[in-house]
């Protein structure tokens, strides 16, 4: 079986940068479960999020994260795109975009 572990947290804790101790803990976690972990990334804060929906063949792009309580997380794609427009273009082609919403969030890149 494969499982997706979703990390929900108060992003305000990270506003002034990541806590070094906690980051070290993540490092240790990564080592401990290296054989189980297939992939994982930190996301940039929700202020960078864009939500894409397609209704009646028309694409609706809005600022901000997904905020609908009657829809539930059903899957994810990690994609490489040159910029947000390309990412939105791909997101709009996901079949679920016609019924639900696709949240587009850039990954956090650690220097």
């Amino acid at each position: 079986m494969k499982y997706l572990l979703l990390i929900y947290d108060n992003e305000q804790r990270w506003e002034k940068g990541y806590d070094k101790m906690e980051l070290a803990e993540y490092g240790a976690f990564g080592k401990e479960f290296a054989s189980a972990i297939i992939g994982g990334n930190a996301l940039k804060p929700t202020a960078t999020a864009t939500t894409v929906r397609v209704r009646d063949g028309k694409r609706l792009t809005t600022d901000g994260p997904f905020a609908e309580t009657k829809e539930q997380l059903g899957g994810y794609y990690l994609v490489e795109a040159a910029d947000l427009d390309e990412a939105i273009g791909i997101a709009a082609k996901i079949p679920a975009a016609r019924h639900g919403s696709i949240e587009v969030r850039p990954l956090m890149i650690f220097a």
Partner: protein
Amino acid sequence: MIDLDRLCRAEWGRLLSSLIRAFGDIDLAEESLQEAFAAAVLEWGKCPPNNPQAWLYGTARHRAIDRIRHRARSQELLSSLAPFDERHLQSTGDNHDAVPDERLRLIFTCCHPALSSEAQVALTLRTLGGLTTEEIAHAFLVPATTMAQRLVRAKAKIREAAIPYRVPEADDLPERLSAVMAVLYLVFNEGYAAAHGSELLRRSLCQEAIELTRLLRSLLGLCLSEVPAEVDSLLALMLLHNARRDARVGADGELVLLEEQDRSRWDRAAIEEGCALVQGALERALPGSYALEAAIAAVHSESPNAQDTDWRQIVGLYARLLRVHPSPVVGLNHAAAVAMAEGPAAALPLLEALAAPLADYHLWHAVRADLLRRMGRPREALLCYRRASELSSNASELRFLARRIAELGGS
């Protein structure tokens, strides 16, 4: 003597667009351009350069290069920088082409749908219109610090989410262009319809929206074989409404209704330009909502007074607008036009059908009151005027409603 404030207002957007293109960084471009203008204040005094635009661009470019020298990865960025002919700094003659015009990219980036509409408006006015943060804050009735925060967040999202700096591909162009037009129309309406702010400020917002729409139109004309008809229609719509600016405000600052305006005070040149634009748009494409609204404004503009207005044509245009853009408020306007064309009895059922969505909208009650009054049902009319009065917060509307209530013997 060069008027630097005027030059800044006129050239800010173009110079900034070009610097953002060169350095890929809005903040860096803004800071460097600000420094270039500050340098101009000090250095131009007695002998301003022959080509002020190129001087400002070249100077801002130097400042930006100085700044990035101190950064990591600066070599990579500097070597990818497009060359700039330094001779332009001293060149004779006013050669505008020395600075590339990248404002079309800037418009599409500022009006990107991944930004909130408030952020889109603020960024567009700041970067393209060259308004200061304080001016924008004042126009939208928010503290300057709030507006500054809004701009900072918008620029951070552009950077962090990698919103591109380019004109969208043909596939995306209709959607993206309609987002740009929505922003420009919002700026115009903020100036035109707002019940707050000084008269001067509201007028300058309308003027700004018109100038930005003209700019959009001319830039699109350079890269498309034909300017989309809706862009012409939007410009027409703004021009036709703005043509009434002097007649729609009374001596004591109160709003004067269309029917009661002194039409000799309408700006005929603006009307002529607006009518020609909308006519051209209607000839080459199926009308969208801007075209229909502009056509309605054009019919009013060409009528000598309210009685001699072609209300049947206006009814027809509103009916089409309802199909393109169904909304209760358009429905209300349609019903009001029907009342003028066919009498109040024909309009009342149309109005009643909008009772649910417009229950708390003062104008629905005011229009209903007017119909009932004209149908000889004064007691019901009085109740409706009172309800409209309770729901309205606009001072000149309240005065108008009080007058009607008094005429019907109420208080």
